[in-house]
């Protein structure tokens, strides 16, 4: 019961500069983010299987989760 998290760009720093990592299903995305010591507010967009979800989404088995940071603004 796992899902794959793929942080983009500078967010990779929080998973030792790997491209992807596995997390347990059943927790919220916010909890997963915090487990990486990543401040939730630096994540601009969460896409789960290419659909936007909020950080309280409960991770399902097999989900592919992309995390995008806000870099420099508008």
């Amino acid at each position, binding site marked *: 019961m796992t899902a794959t998290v793929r942080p*983009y*760009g*500078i967010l990779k720093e929080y998973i030792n500069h790997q491209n992807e990592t596995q997390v347990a299903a059943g927790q919220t995305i916010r909890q997963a983010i915090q487990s990486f010591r990543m*401040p939730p*507010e*630096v*994540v*601009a*967009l969460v*896409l789960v299987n290419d*659909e*936007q979800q*909020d*950080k309280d989404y409960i991770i399902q088995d097999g989900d592919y989760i*992309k995390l*995008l*940071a*806000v*870099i*420099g*603004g*508008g």
Partner: protein
Amino acid sequence: MNGYGGSILRVNLTDNKLTKEPTPPELARDFIGGRGFGIYHLLREVPRGADPLGPENKLIISSGPLSGMLSAGGGKCDWTTKSPLTNGYASASMGGHFTAEMKYAGIDTIILEGISPTPVYLLIDDNKLQLLDASFLWGKGAIDAEVALKNKHGEEFQIAAIGPGGENLVPYACVNHDFGRQAGRGGVGTVMGQKKLKAIVIRGTKSVPVADAQAYRKAGIDLYRACIEAEGHDEWTRYGTTIVTSWCDEVGALPTRNFSAGSFEDGKNIYGPVMRKEIVITDKGCFGCPCPCGKYSRSRRYGTYVEGPEYETIGLMGSNLGIGDIEAVAEANRLADDLGLDSISAGNTIAWAMECYEKGMLTQEDTDGLDLRFGNIEAAFAAIKKIAYREGKLGQLLAQGVKRAAEQIGKGSDKFAIHVKGMEQSAYATHNATAMLLAYMTCDVGAHHNRSWAITYDLQVGRDKVVPEKVARIIWLQNFRPMFDVLGSCRLQWVELGIDRDLYVPLLEAVTGIHRTWEDLEAVGDRIWNLTRMYWVRENPGFGRSWDLPSPRFYEEAPKTGATAGQITNYEDVQCLLDMYYEQRGWDDNGIPTPQTLQKLNIAVQTH
């Protein structure tokens, strides 16, 4: 001259006189292009104390060395003038394809002077230059005018046009181009309207010389490749600037009901992915862009099409008006574009009026019968139209901009008129984001976000912290980011995709033959920043510290709801931010560059 069209086109609308002169090489060396050229000409050519709506004011349109070139997003030009909204410096950046045609017509800068006795439009077809009768266009919307001119001259011509807002001298009128791109802020469309110039129609077919063609090709391809291969390229392209809407809502930066809060209970209805799913029909990019962030949308409910809405319009004409309906926001966007109004200033000003109405400071007699409550979509549409035509009591009131409207109404409504220096604040609520607040306070056109954008930095180092590092960050951004507006290339590839900015260094060298590092470019940016400050000083007796203060809403009135509920910036901290900023800039306690600073930057003479 490598990287340049080579000439300045001077258009005297009073005398119907069109002349070309060479772009001076020393101007290109010292000011490079874009807004660098703009402030140079503004300071030299528009006399001190000129009426922004008088014949002495000029409208200066400048490309940069990367405009129209193999740069990722070389579609930018700068529109500089003395602002009819603020009486200070105005500089608006416009994307699309206009600037490429300027370069290909051999023109770096177009300087519009005087006032035409009758409505005209300017035709530039390589070396053929004409002012033509525009009576058949006057009164048309900007989009309709563009259609009419495309039909008349051909699809390959690029067009910049004003709408009724510019014709009726609304001080925040914009210029529209390419069916949805704008030179938006500070009233550049107003000055065009005052000159009775409805549109510019341009086509160029010449080539632009480059210093090293082989190196140019390589550097251009390297830059493109970096953009296309950047992580997040597909997502940023898919959602464009609307990617930040949900994030702003989450962190309390989404302007809501006239900036009284930073989170919106109906925010989820206007997030980027909702917009993509509900109304977007295709992506739309500017010249040479590898990540087309523009979105072309269709509203089925209203039967209309619009480019957008961008995040800024979603913030100001959505949540800030209490409207959580993406189709309604798109339609408000279309109205503002076609009527030729800056959607940021218009949304901000209408939100102020809605708050006045809900507080009883404006009645239905003042609103021409409109029930101007937050969330009333039809009332918002009606207000936009009234502003453009200065129609009725409400149109006349709001067509002044929020600062002057609040001065007219009084009753303490200036406390919630959200502006700096008379320019309405763009779409970031800054109750507890001290770096972003300082960015707005010190921006050289008024409360605009594009010079420095620092909310993420606030989050990194602590939102309420008031420390020299934050101030240094703002100054660095102010010197660095606007250099994209000097080079004539879009900053969003760096901003959104995070590509290495050093990729621009070999490209600029290959184009111009001059090696410049980013440190060199930032030094030019510093110089331009001080020049624009001196323009404010020159044009406004008594200009100083008090002009840099934000709306009291951000230091007197904490939001009651949302992510920033109960949070506020202390007034003492606001003043402390200015103290540190002035010290680091080399300005005196009143915010005026010291003679030593001007001397160091070699600009003392140029301000006289």
